[in-house]
């Protein structure tokens, strides 16, 4: 049985490699020719792309070039993390909860999986369907407030509202503290508040500003921007972590 986890990481590596190819539409700068964004509509399948004119490799494992400012509590917890993605690793040398236990990835770590997601709007909520492990988020847009005493969940509880015609603002709270913020193992507490601003800059391009606030773990907010491209011809398939990823029998001779 060879290092399946190394292979899984190579997937990310190869994904990251594709932007080096000039013909790759995912890396082409946003074209002015793209039609304007429709109002209050993110419907469709979106796939990560690198920032225009950049091959920002660190987006594969963490959010920013410089590490976040952690509290002492988080520093201590971070030292316990044995990242899957810092170089050499095997199943025995990482304690990454996604790779070793198929724990749900949490938010915003879910965006490091090199697979697309889909927006589905309904009158009272918007669904985010992530191809990786059938991950679903339900973003309530019926005007309800952010819960003050939320249950603690893997993917949190989300409420959203439109800021203008083309920006969906999503506030998410109520996370358990079992997930990592990124693939390096930067921790968060159950006080994590994630704000996502999905800005549809034109019909084909989406920019996602993420702000992580956590008074217990982050000495100051951690922010980043991710870039996505509409994939009108793509459909989400099935990727189940449990079984697909944890059952090694398919990889043994």
């Amino acid at each position, binding site marked *: 049985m*060879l*290092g*399946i*986890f*190394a*292979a*899984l*990481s*190579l*997937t*990310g*590596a*190869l994904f*990251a*490699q*594709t932007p*080096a*190819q000039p013909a*790759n*539409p*995912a890396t082409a700068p946003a074209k002015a020719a793209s039609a304007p964004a429709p109002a209050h509509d993110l419907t469709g399948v979106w796939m990560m792309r690198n920032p225009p004119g950049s*091959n*920002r*490799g*660190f987006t*594969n*494992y963490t959010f920013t070039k410089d590490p976040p400012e952690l509290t002492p509590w988080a520093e201590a917890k971070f030292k316990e993390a044995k990242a*899957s*993605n*810092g*170089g*050499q*690793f*095997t199943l025995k040398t*990482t304690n990454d909860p996604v790779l070793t236990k198929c724990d749900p990835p949490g938010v915003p770590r879910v965006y490091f999986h090199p*697979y697309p997601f889909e927006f589905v709007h309904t009158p009272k909520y918007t669904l985010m369907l992530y*191809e990786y492990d059938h991950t679903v988020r339900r973003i309530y847009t019926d005007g309800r407030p952010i819960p003050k005493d939320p249950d603690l969940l893997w993917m949190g509880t989300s409420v959203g509202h439109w800021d203008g015609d083309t920006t969906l603002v999503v506030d998410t709270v109520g996370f358990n503290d079992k997930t990592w913020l990124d693939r390096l193992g930067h921790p968060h507490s159950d006080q994590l508040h994630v704000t996502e601003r999905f800005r549809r800059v034109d019909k084909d391009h989406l920019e996602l500003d993420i702000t992580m606030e956590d008074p217990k773990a982050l000495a100051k907010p951690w922010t980043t921007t991710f870039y996505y491209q509409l994939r009108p011809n*793509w459909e*989400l*398939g*099935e*990727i*189940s972590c449990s079984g*697909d*990823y944890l059952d090694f029998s*398919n*990889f043994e*001779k």
Partner: protein
Amino acid sequence: MKTKILALILGIVAVLVVSGTTFAHHGTAAYDTKNIVTVKGTMTDFRFINPHVQLFFDVKNDKGEVENWQAELTAPNKLARAGWDKHTLKAGDSITASGYVSKGDAHTMWINKLIGPDGEALHLFEE
């Protein structure tokens, strides 16, 4: 006939292309990513499965012995978006695979380039 080629130049190019921004941040413990090996073989099994598509094929070495190889591609969903399906390859097909060989098993490969039975390179990325 053994057609295993140690393409050092290709390996260097590959490392240069993907260095720093990609492989430096990824666990590559299982594969020798400094060298690209090319083998020609005959498919014995093709599994279009998560998390990575699996190829099984036989390669004849210099001594005329048959080596049983196993190789991986990316996720089936990604290959489906590149035009693949579960019937793209089948037992008996001739292939030429190039890629990184596992450090722990000389007959296990991560494929970077694949020539199919019709002699054409198969698309390995969903773009």
